[in-house]
Each structure stands twice: as structure tokens, then as C-alpha cells.
């Protein structure tokens, strides 16, 4: 046995000891949730649970990706929380079946929004949380410690946090998605499902996940 493997064995036994002692703190392996967006599902198997995903890029692309998530919530019968830091969500543009599945939390600034997300993660009832920080000026003032706290809280849960922002702000995001423009003005006549299917994304991942499961099983 080499020194390296001996160290690794001791680490494994120490990890097992800690997990046995504090089972609630054990890190669950991340899972994949397909949301019906081909660009995302085919590329990486879906959104990661137990982790923070950040979506940036074109605002139309981000909105269409949010549409895919809400459509998936309506189809698969789970609930989503939208923490809206700029109060810009427009219910009239969304189908009632999707609104019925969504908790809308309107905040006045990024600080309040982060605090609201903290409440909802600790509550643990909603499998998906979306924090919309697009167009918020003081987003850089969100302390890095908040993101680290979210990582720690999420890694022991089945919840997923998706942060929508105009530019990268989340330190240590497990998955970063850059959404491309979803279409021109003529796209207003296209079915939203078509826009979701045509959406182009760039996906950057940190670390790996153990296995993939459909979303219904995770909720």
C-alpha cells in the first residue's frame, strides 16, 4: 500500500464516520432534472439539484429558459418559487397552469431577495427556486458568503437554486449557463415551446454528478 492510498483510505473512513455521526449533514449526490429544454437536457442531462445553477446572457434567452422550467413544473406537477429582485415578472404573459405552480416573491433589492431565498431554502418545501437578479444594480453587493451559505444548505437537500442574472455573480456555481438570444420581434407569434426547442445555450459545469433521474422522482 502506498502512502497516498493509505491517506485516501483514512480520509474515506473519516468521512464515513462523520456521515454516520451526522447523517443529516451528509452531502447527497447531485441529480439531474430534465426540464424539457433540448439544449440543456441533451448537453448535460438537465438542471442540477442540490446545487446552484447560474443562468446569464441574453435576457430573452433567460426568459425562455425560465419558461421551460415553469412549463416543466406544470407538466410534472411540482412547485417553483420565483424570487424577483426587480419585480419584473409579468403574469399576463404566462399560462394560468404555470402560474398555479409558482410562488412569486417580489423584493425591492438584491439584499432582500437573498434573504427571501434563504427563508425558502431553509423551509425546504419547494423543489425549485429561481432567483431573478436581472437588471438589479446592486447585485455585486451580495456578499460571497451568501452564495457559499446557499451551496452548503443545498448540498444536503434535493432542492435546486437557479440564479438568473445579467452577468456572472454567483461564486462557485455548480453549473453556469449562458443563454443566447431567443429570437427577433417576429418571435412574438411563435409558440413558446418552439422557442424553447430552438434555444441555444452554452453550459459550463463544475464537478460531476452521480446519476440522472427524471424530475418527478426528485420532488
Amino acid at each position, binding site marked *: 500500500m502506498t502512502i497516498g492510498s493509505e491517506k485516501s483510505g483514512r480520509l474515506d473512513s473519516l468521512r464515513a464516520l462523520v456521515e454516520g455521526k451526522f447523517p443529516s449533514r451528509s452531502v447527497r449526490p447531485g441529480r439531474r432534472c430534465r426540464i424539457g429544454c433540448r439544449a440543456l437536457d441533451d448537453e448535460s442531462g438537465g438542471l442540477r439539484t442540490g446545487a446552484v445553477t447560474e443562468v446569464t446572457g*441574453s*435576457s*430573452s434567452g433567460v*426568459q*425562455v429558459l425560465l*419558461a421551460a422550467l415553469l412549463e416543466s413544473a406544470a407538466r*410534472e*406537477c*411540482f*412547485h417553483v418559487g420565483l424570487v424577483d429582485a*426587480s419585480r*419584473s*415578472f*409579468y*403574469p*399576463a*404573459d*404566462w*399560462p*394560468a*397552469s*404555470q*402560474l*398555479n*405552480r*409558482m*410562488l*412569486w*416573491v*417580489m*423584493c*425591492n433589492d438584491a439584499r*432582500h431577495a437573498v*434573504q*427571501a431565498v434563504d*427563508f*425558502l431554502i*431553509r*423551509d*425546504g*418545501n*419547494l*423543489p425549485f427556486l429561481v432567483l431573478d437578479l*436581472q*437588471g438589479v444594480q446592486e447585485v455585486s453587493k451580495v456578499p460571497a458568503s451568501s452564495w457559499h451559505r446557499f451551496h452548503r444548505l443545498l448540498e444536503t437537500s434535493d432542492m435546486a437554486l437557479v440564479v438568473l442574472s445579467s452577468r456572472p455573480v454567483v461564486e462557485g456555481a455548480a453549473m453556469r449557463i449562458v443563454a443566447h*438570444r*431567443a*429570437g*427577433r*420581434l*417576429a*418571435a*412574438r*407569434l*411563435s*409558440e*413558446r415551446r418552439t*422557442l424553447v426547442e430552438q434555444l441555444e445555450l452554452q453550459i459550463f459545469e463544475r464537478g460531476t454528478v452521480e446519476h440522472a433521474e427524471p424530475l*418527478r422522482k426528485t*420532488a
Partner: protein
Amino acid sequence: MFACLLLPQFRLAAAMRWRDCAGPAAVVENVAKGLILEVNEAALAKNIHPGFSLAQAMARDMRVHILTRSQAQEDALHHMLIDRALSLSPDVEETALGMCLADLRKRPKPPSWHGLADEIVARFSNEKLRVTVAFAPTPDLAILAAKGTASVAVVYDASAFAGALSVGALELSAPAAETLRDWGITTVGQLLALPRAEVIERLGSEVAQALQKVSGRSKRLLRLIRPEVKYAEAFDFEHEVESTEPLMFLLRRFLVSLTDRLQSAHRVARQLRLGMPLDDGTHYERTFTIPAPTSDLEVLYRILDTHLSALRLEQRPVGIKLEIEAGEQTGSQLGLFETALRDLNGFGETLARLKAFLGEDSVGIPRKIDSYRPDTFALDPMFPVDGSVIREDPACGIPLRRYRPAIFVHVETNSDVPVSVRSSPLQGAVVEAVGPFRLSGDWWDDQAWHTDEWDVELDTGAMLRLSRVGTEWKVEGAYELC
């Protein structure tokens, strides 16, 4: 058998409830011009009696607690008494304030009447209340027995019980009582031994009615009540309250009592109504709907705690009232693939925290309203429970991100069509414009509105929704920002 539940010195008991008064205590109608209505045993020992003025009572003992009669507390206590009586039988008479009769003839005979009575007394003792319970073959004997006992009385033999009763228990008028005293009659047994017709001839119908009561043969019909059982508790403070601590302390004690009553009736709380009269004469009231109806003390307490810890009032409360709307426990069947919230009440509590933190109108489930007016919607407090499938047209286009409030901009037009937007930070030449979408409504009243909307794409790549009211242009939202 008939049961009589009596709360002796009801007005004093109601006023003393939730207060830790040791020593002599008396209740008055009103401190300003008060004659003492009722006193406790400690006050009697100090020779303080009902009918005394406050000065007379204070002269006997300076430490006597003078309490003002509280209508809210009396109501709550009376409802509690009725509720307890209804737990014995559905046929209950509200005989007097603080006294109930229950007809037990239709219920199975308990193994021991004394055991049942002790159980009732123990439940009241848990609430720090003294009750007297009597079981007797007739309603009137049950009342007499309840008035004559210190705790529990069971009358098996009506004639033996009546015979031993003091004549004073019949509560006859002064002349009749005096005549009987002159005759040397001190017990009901002695009275019953006299020739009935001659006694009635000399003392009148009053004695006839009294003899009928104690005969054990008259079973008068009860004036049955079918009340909606109220689960409510209230307390009037002697002084204005400055902090939430005493409120929370009292609310917890209220809830201990109310949840016990709910559980004994196999019911659950659907709504909590919290009321507080304030020192300026106004009234604060708030209703909490329980997401998953429950009778769990801790869940209900947390809902109130969350609300009160964030509550700021300019006026000070002078009382508090908590009312529970009870309902039956119902189960609901979820759809096959429906994913329920794990802890509905925990989620409700989190929503309450968020509302306290962000404002009441900032959290909810969005719902579209049947109106053409832009940006109208409603917020529901909780996810809809019915899993019915909503049939609707598929959604189209890129969802708009709305600016609240909208941004005023300068727009140049050509033949009424926007050609450029000239306001920082949104500016550029319009390369495509779709519109106008003319919207109007409420033209039948003074709330009439009218607006023209345009969807435009600028040469910068930005896609905006513009609106025009008169000559004013605003950017209502954006589909794309570049």
C-alpha cells in the same frame, strides 16, 4: 339522569381567569361607581361581602384585588362551559350565566357517575377553574345538587336527597321563609311531611312550585340550545401593553385551552382570528388561514408568534381576543403524479415570515384577472388545491419583463409610428415596430382608461414594449435588452 355544570361566582371566575391573583379578590361592575358583585373565599375570610362599596372592602383589607367585570372574558368562559356540556350530551340547556344542564338520558350509562363527574372537574381544574358537577334524576334536583355541593354530587334517591336539603336551598321569598322558620321547619323533609294542600293554601303558589321541584317527579322540558360552538378566549388588560411578550404569553395559554377543546371534539382549526382593542378606541384585527387545518398547539402558536414578532403598532393594545374557526378534519386525495408540499403548515409559516419581511402584497401565487388593463393581476395566499386541468391556448412569444414603474421616454414618430427612442439608457432607431394595440376599459365610469401599445425592436437589438397615453410615451417592459 341530568347533569348540571355550575361555575360558582361566575363573574369573579371570568375576571380572575388568566390572572394570578392570590389572596382576597372582588369583582365590580365598574371601578368608578362600584359595589362589589362577588368575592372569593379569601375575601369572605376578611369579612368582605358582596354589596360592599370599594371603600368598605378596602377598609377591611387594603390588599384586596379589585377586578372589573369583563364581558369578553365572561362570554369566552360561558362558551367554554357550553362546549363542555355539549361534550356530555347534544341536549343542553343554557340555564343561567355560568350554569348549564345536560340531558343524559339518551347516552349510555357510564361505569361510574362519580368517575365521570371527577373527570369533568379535573378538566376544569386544568384550566384553573372551579366547577361543581351534579347528576340527578330531574333537572331541578341537578341544579339544587350543583348549588349545594363543593365539587361533585350524584343524586340516586330523590326523596332522600330532597329530605336532607335545607329550606334555604329552595330560595323562597323572605315572608315565606320567615313563616317556615316560625313553624320550626328547617329542612325540605320536614316541609314535605306537612299536609301539602294546607301548606300551599297558607304559603301560596311559590311553595307549590318549590315542592314540585324537589318532589323528584317533575321532569320539565329543557330549553335546548343549538349553539354554534365558539372557540374563543379573551382578556382585558388593566393597563396598556407596551411589548409583545405579555401578548404571546397569554396567546399561548389561550391556545393550550382552545386546542384541548378542539382535540376533545375531534376538530381542527381552520382559521385564527386575532383581535386587539387599542388605546385610541380602534380595533386591530387579523385573520390567519391555516394551510393544513390542525389542532397542534405548536403550529398554531408559531403562526401567531411569526405575525406578532413583526407587528408594529402606533397604538397600544388594551386587550386581546383569540377566536378559532373550527372544522372537521378532512383528507384530500392527491393526483397520481401530484407532488405535494412536504410540510404545508411549515410552508405557510415561511410565507408569513416573507410577508412580514417584504410586505403583505409582495408574496403569493399570481393569478390573472379578467381585464384588458395592462399589469393587472391578483396574488393568492396559497397554491390552489384542486388539481383540475386548465385548458388554455399554448403560450406564445418571449415573456415580457415589465418595468415597475414604467420608464418615461421621448419617442419620435412618423405618421404616428415610432421611429426612434431617445432617452438614456434606452435609445436607438426603431428597425421594426408592431402596433398600435389599442386598449381601453372602464369607459362606463370615472376610472376610464385608454392606452396604445407598440412592440418595437431597436437597432441596438433591444426589443421593448412602448405605451402612449396622450402625448406621453413610456417603456412598459423589455423582451430583450442589449
